[in-house]
């Protein structure tokens, strides 16, 4: 079941994004946090002390829970619009992040 509602808007062109080396199809300009969520990629990062999985929560830039790595930079995914070929890392990314 596609969870997209298409009665009010036509989406733009289909693109691919790369999430932890996995190919995910989406439409250009869709919200990254939402696309990950409906694709059941819900575990976006680990909490600092207990290392519990966390995911999208408020979807309005308040809680900061939906942080992911895009091109190795930490951003909150609720404020990111999908572009073709975007490289995203989710999960235990503090280890993966290039520390300066």
């Amino acid at each position, binding site marked *: *079941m596609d*969870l*997209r*509602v*298409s*009665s*009010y*808007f*036509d*989406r*733009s062109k289909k693109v691919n994004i790369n999430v932890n080396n996995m190919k995910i199809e989406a*439409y*250009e*300009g*869709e*919200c990254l946090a*939402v696309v990950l*969520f*409906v694709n059941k990629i*819900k*575990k*976006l990062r680990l*909490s*600092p*002390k*207990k290392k*519990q*999985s*966390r*995911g*999208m*929560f*408020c*979807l*309005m*830039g*308040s*809680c*900061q*829970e939906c*942080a992911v790595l895009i091109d190795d*930079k930490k951003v909150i995914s609720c*404020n990111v*619009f999908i572009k073709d070929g975007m490289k995203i890392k989710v999960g235990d990314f503090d280890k993966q992040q290039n520390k300066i």
Partner: protein
Amino acid sequence: MILINNKTKYDVIVIGAGPSGVSSAINCAKRGLKVLIVDSNHEAGGQIYRAPPKTYKSIPKNKLEENEIQKKMSIELKNYQIETAYNHTVWQVSPGFKVNAFNDFSTIQWETKSLIIATGTYEKIIPFEGWTIPGVIGLAACTVMLKSHHFIPSKKIILAGNGPLLILVAYYISKFGGKVDAIVDTCSKLDWIRSTLSLITNQKNFNDGIKWIFKIFLNRIPVHSNCKIEKAVEVDGGIKVKILNLKTGEYKNIFSETIAIGHGLTPSTDITRLLRAEHIYDEHKGGWIAKVDRFLRSSVNGVYLAGDGAGISGALAASDKGLLASTALLYDKKIISKKEFDTNTRKIKKKLDKYEVFAKAISKLNSIPKKLIENIHEDTIICRCEDITKKEILSAVDQGAKDINQIKSWTRLGMGPCQGRTCQYTASKIIAEYLNCEIENLGYLTGRSPIRPVPIDRVLGDFDYEKITKVEAAPL
């Protein structure tokens, strides 16, 4: 590229381009003031009328009311030639006033003589065991997913909490062809019936509400009244949810994929706290709010509060509150006469008084039953950013921490990326219940910048080493 030295000065900066921000910006621009409106979204609309992504192309024959209102707001700002800084997140505001924001590429600072804060609200969510599981989201998050991004959140979903968002989200999911497994409402059906007399004062919203409830009946969505979610556990392919009937004490298990939960809204006070404005606690208005006079002036000269930021009263009232705050600003700047001020504010206040009846009834439906706080298990995480449990908070209280800022420095509660937006309300409630005191006595978290995490490379800027002012090191 860093634009930090590229200062632009304005008469008024409006922070937040929701209904109240837009109406106040227009009111100021009409009188010839140089206005800038800032918002972290890519268009005007706020959260309630949040714009769909730019790449979405509307289908003319089908229209969603909220999307149409949003379009009008963006067009109106353009018609009045109001400068907009969309995609800009404000992370610091200092007296004077200097407003610092960042976008995808750089940091920018603007200067202004007056500030209208129209930053709205965010959702209040009372924790339960398992609320940090990915797949547990806010009801407000669902509204954004549905009305702005045009996605059904999940194939299977439980809606929990209380208030109008419960029925609104259920309505939209059903309308868009999705399925709601259950509604878990802390209120009773009688609570809803009792509120009708007050709710009917706002005909438009009342009619919408009736339409939403009708859809819930039609779709035979099971409604568990007087109930709360006690515990959620991740199981194969979803979440097992244990619900508790607050009246009978009975438990029931439901299985679903997603939980959406919310207990009303709380005003965003990030900026007024940064500016050291006075705040008061008002449970019915959503919690801690900036103290304002009858015309929405804050305790800081030149700072005005518009919309729900000065207490929750809903979207329809918000644009009138924007008018009221900006009318006060115009009068204070001697742009309009006392006579014009009196006539205009009297008219607006009359309308607003009507909305207050409605707002009070909504706030009652969104009230937090004592049991919701008492029942929180001691191992439940309260501060999600720093993984601080109820037990850790209470043990700090036992050791002598008696206000919320002391709790913060002892436990790190509220010190993470969200700066306490998610946990302050619940933490204060827990401590107040434990100490049997009023929340006022615990104070509120002192505002600290950055109010949103800002990438350090964007703050640093470009500079020559020679230009740095060197300070003598302190003698050892």
